[in-house]
């Protein structure tokens, strides 16, 4: 069991900045995110795109913003549970919460802050009849352990980076790799496209374009697929595995069943005070919340994170008074023993 002061669900900009604000109040944070790396949308969807409305940065790349937020909160030693989705929340008799992920990792804290953005990123599933009944029986939407494909026949569908990269990787593992895409052009890093071309020329990847998978067949497990060319003709291909890789789309997911008040796919919070939800001790900050006048902006998420931390402080330290301190005056004492402070002025007479 991981214990901390604030469990933060979502490691995007708002969640990461919460670590800093909590740290100033001597509160420890642990972040849970379904993606394998911190940064949320900023790292997953548009790391190379510029953002122009982060105060004091005339222009900053989304990936760079993530790096700077991680750097800023580093001395407060946040914990991370990455690549796992927060699945359930249980209130304990002592008032604390236990949040459990889809992989069974348990986290306990007196305060939970949901900074889940648009939700957790789930693979987009093509609408092919009976596809779902073959899930884990030859059909998968992401590759967790490439070894399970050793010496097997694999069909990958998709035209983006992950389809290209996995086709390349699996060409050395699987007995046969077929890559199917709806058009002849692929969108990916240039060297991946070139590599697939090279492997195709060597006969290590079979390319079928422009085409799409239109049916799946099998008894107890996947046995074959139907591939339809865009000219209307179709063929049947025998295979052990079909892996559609069509990117990720965000879904509010299990959080929607936590008993929180939801409006317009977002969690309703009290914006007059502290961004608490209808469950005391559970907060929602950043893009995931809604209230009258809500703006889904990173800078608004930062403000909400700061006020959430103040409320968390009161829950964790009941009755304790608090006086706002400025970092310029007080400096920052990290949990790692580090100290940052303004250089002292020199007092010296001038002759």
């Amino acid at each position, binding site marked *: 069991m991981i214990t901390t002061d604030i469990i933060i669900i979502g490691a995007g900009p708002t969640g990461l900045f919460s670590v800093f604000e909590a740290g100033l109040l001597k509160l420890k944070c642990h972040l849970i995110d379904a993606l394998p790396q911190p940064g949320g949308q900023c790292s997953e*969807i548009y790391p190379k*795109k510029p953002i122009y409305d982060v105060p004091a940065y005339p222009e900053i790349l989304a990936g760079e913003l993530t790096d700077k937020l991680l750097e800023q909160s580093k001395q407060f030693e946040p914990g991370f549970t990455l690549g796992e989705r927060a699945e359930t929340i249980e209130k304990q008799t002592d008032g604390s919460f236990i949040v459990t992920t889809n992989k069974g990792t348990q986290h306990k804290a007196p305060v939970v802050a949901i900074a889940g953005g648009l939700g957790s990123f789930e693979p987009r599933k093509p609408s092919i009849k009976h596809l779902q009944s073959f899930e884990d029986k030859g059909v998968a939407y992401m590759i967790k352990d490439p070894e399970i494909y050793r010496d097997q026949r694999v069909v990958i569908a998709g035209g983006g980076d992950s389809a290209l990269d996995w086709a390349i990787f699996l060409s050395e593992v699987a007995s046969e790799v077929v890559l199917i*895409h709806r058009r002849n052009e692929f969108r990916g890093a240039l060297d991946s496209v070139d590599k697939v071309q090279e492997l195709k020329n060597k006969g290590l990847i079979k390319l079928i374009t422009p085409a799409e998978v239109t049916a799946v067949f099998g008894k107890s497990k996947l046995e074959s697929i139907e591939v339809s060319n865009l000219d209307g003709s179709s063929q049947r291909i025998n295979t052990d595995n079909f892996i559609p890789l069509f*990117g990720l789309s965000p879904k509010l997911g299990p959080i929607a069943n936590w008993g929180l008040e939801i409006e317009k*796919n977002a969690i309703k919070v009290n914006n007059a005070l502290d961004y608490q939800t209808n469950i005391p001790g559970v907060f929602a900050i950043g893009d995931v919340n809604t209230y009258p006048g809500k703006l889904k902006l990173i800078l608004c998420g930062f403000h909400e994170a700061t006020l959430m931390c103040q409320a968390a402080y009161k829950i964790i330290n009941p009755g304790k008074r608090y006086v706002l301190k400025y970092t310029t005056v007080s400096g920052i004492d990290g949990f790692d023993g580090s100290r940052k402070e303004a250089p002292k002025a020199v007092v010296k007479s001038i002759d």
Partner: protein
Amino acid sequence: MANDVNIQITDRDGTTHDVLAPTDMALNLMEVIRLFELAPEGTIGVCGGMAMCASCQCYIISSHKLNEKSEDEDAMLSEAFNVKQSSRLGCQIQITNELEGLEIKLAPED
């Protein structure tokens, strides 16, 4: 108003709405759909309008001549579902006076 254009939008439930879209706010079609709340928040414009998701995919019904698809839009549509010949990403279509009378239908949610 002189700066507004009439657009007919059929939502995902099949209901048709006639909206008056302003041309002086630098809006795109995805934003117009959000402006009039014709699709629930969180189901449209997920990437913010960067042609990096297909949540604003729509079918162009009328025969208006639109701006050409960029490479980004083309690539995104190649990976989207329920794509037809008439598919476009709403976020890539700027609202201009030329769009007077445009008719579109929102594609189903992924």
